[in-house]
């Protein structure tokens, strides 16, 4: 029982990272009906930039800001330049374009940073607290959970209480009508992608102390985030958070009781199961859109 509790709590921090990735995918999906396969790769690249900044002597926080700003710029540029022309075409075209971005970014990372994995530094302790027999949740894990939770709350507040958030929702919900009412729809979509890439960058910085940084290190994290987003229905930010945390817990059980190498296949099994049984996800609000 103590082991089970430790494993459960141990899955939380990973789960919150996947929740962040899921949230970023949902943000993009809601805005543009595109699934951004480059999301993990772009995040990986920003984490690399931050890693370089730390190597040159900057603090963890400065590097974090560098990663977030790099994500903001990257997300905006990719949407405006590459994705905009295919946004209203057949869905497969947008998928292939984001795959192109994915492979380019991974190639660039390999060129500039090499293929050797780097452990991203952190100044939070990685030593678990112990409560009786249960040992889990190092200060670093708490930081991960708090960071993602704060971002989620900020994002929720942005959409609910601010003018920009309202415009973004309008642009995503009914672009043509929003445009007639004076919303700069294109700008809102770019902003959506940029915000999503910021969240992705945060996820990469948070996960890279545990998953050493390499050009392909975010591939599996992306798959887990995607699975979390699909569990939540791709349309629902709350669903994405719950789905992400859920998949994090599940994968930690798989790692503890079956083997860490099977995590991705377990995620695949969950993904296929959810899509077969409840194609709109467990938390989706729309019923008209079938998979």
């Amino acid at each position, binding site marked *: 029982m103590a082991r089970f509790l430790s494993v459960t709590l141990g899955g939380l921090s990973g789960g919150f990272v996947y929740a962040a990735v899921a949230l970023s995918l949902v943000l993009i999906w809601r805005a543009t009906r595109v699934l951004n396969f480059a999301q993990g790769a772009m995040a990986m690249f920003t984490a690399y930039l931050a890693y370089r900044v730390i190597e040159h002597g900057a603090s963890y926080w400065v590097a974090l800001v560098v990663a977030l700003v790099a994500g903001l710029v990257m997300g905006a540029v990719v949407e405006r330049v590459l994705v905009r022309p295919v946004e209203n075409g057949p869905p497969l075209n947008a998928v292939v374009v984001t795959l192109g971005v994915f492979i380019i970014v991974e190639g660039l990372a390999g060129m500039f940073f090499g293929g050797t994995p780097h452990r991203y530094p952190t100044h939070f302790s990685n030593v678990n607290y112990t409560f009786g027999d249960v040992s889990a949740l190092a200060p670093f894990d708490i930081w991960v959970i708090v960071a993602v939770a704060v971002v989620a709350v900020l994002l929720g507040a942005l959409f609910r209480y601010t003018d920009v958030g309202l415009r973004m929702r309008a642009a995503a919900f009914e672009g043509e009508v929003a445009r007639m009412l004076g919303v700069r729809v294109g700008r809102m979509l770019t902003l959506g992608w940029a915000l999503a890439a910021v969240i992705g960058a945060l996820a990469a910085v948070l996960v890279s102390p545990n998953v050493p940084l390499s050009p392909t290190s975010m591939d599996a994290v992306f798959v887990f985030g995607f699975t979390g987003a699909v569990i939540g229905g791709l349309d629902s930010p709350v669903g994405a958070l719950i789905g992400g945390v859920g998949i994090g817990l599940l994968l930690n059980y798989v790692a503890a009781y079956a083997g860490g190498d099977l995590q991705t296949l377990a995620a695949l099994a969950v993904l296929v199961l959810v899509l077969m049984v409840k194609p709109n996800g467990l938390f989706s609000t729309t019923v008209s859109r079938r*998979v």
Partner: protein
Amino acid sequence: MSVLTLTRRGPLANTLVRHLAFAVLGGVVLFFLTSTVSAYRDFQIANVGYYVVAVAGLTVLTGLNGQISLGHGALMMVGAYTAALLLERDNPLPLVVVLLLSVAVTAAVGALVGAAAARLRGPYLAGATLAFAVGLPGLTSHYADTFGGDNGLNVLTGPPPERLGLDFPPERWQAWITLTAALITLVLLANLASSRVGRSFRAVRDDEVSAELAGIHVARTQVLAFIISAACAGLAGGLTAVVSGQVSPGAFSVALSLSILAGAVLGGLGSLTGAVYGAIALVLMPSISSSASDRFTLSTDVQHNLPLLVYGALLIVVMLAAPQGLQGGVRRLFGLLRGRAPVTSVRNESVTEVSVTDPER
């Protein structure tokens, strides 16, 4: 479609005869080509052989049937490990049997993936197959005793047959193996494409509801397309194992899956001839990259990753330039680039011309 086919005269009017004639002609040309070039070129040609099989398989799935797969690198891995494990035994089976078993095992895995895939569309299918591609290499570390972990397995392939002469270059022998497999695959797929099954593939791709109304079992057709495509990937994987002499999880990365997709897109999806061009490009790119790196004294990191940049740029440019969609549009685009009037493609493609579909449906 049938009207145009009937206007042909003579023995070439029969599709099977025509495809076989092309294959024999190609075989003769390739026999002389492989006999004259250097060992390194033969090695490259051997690589082209298995890439043709893989790209052609994906072309059938995506181009003819409209399903996307990012998992073909992983399916190749299934074939490669099957071949490696079979060749590892003390009394290995003949190579042909080994390769056929690679095909069978991979087709079985493909049936599993395909059964799930038939219920998924567009981005969801891409995501699920990506998960498959990312996850499968993990099995090799989980069952490291069988699969050799990260280091993989060595593949023991015998020398060329003795009656070819003792100094017969092994590269040429490998080229013959993969080219034979490629020609057989192309003939089979070309026949398939112009058969009833191929037409049902296209019908499902273009409009699932209409296909269903015409009496085609949509899900069954999609699973069949996936099985055939997976079988090709398995053969390609088995050949990869034979040519490279070893299999390791690193060789079957997501990048491989995306490279194959790039090859299929480059060749113009739906065209088997295009698959050959795509495969040649996939083999030439790394060597172009390495000679460019030599000339400009770039690091090996740059050299290894340059092809990825080219593939990625290619995927993006083709999609931006062919807004009608993957199907047909890509093919027409490349037809124009090659200076051909679209008329030449009417015979196989009269259905494709009207294919602006909504895969999300």
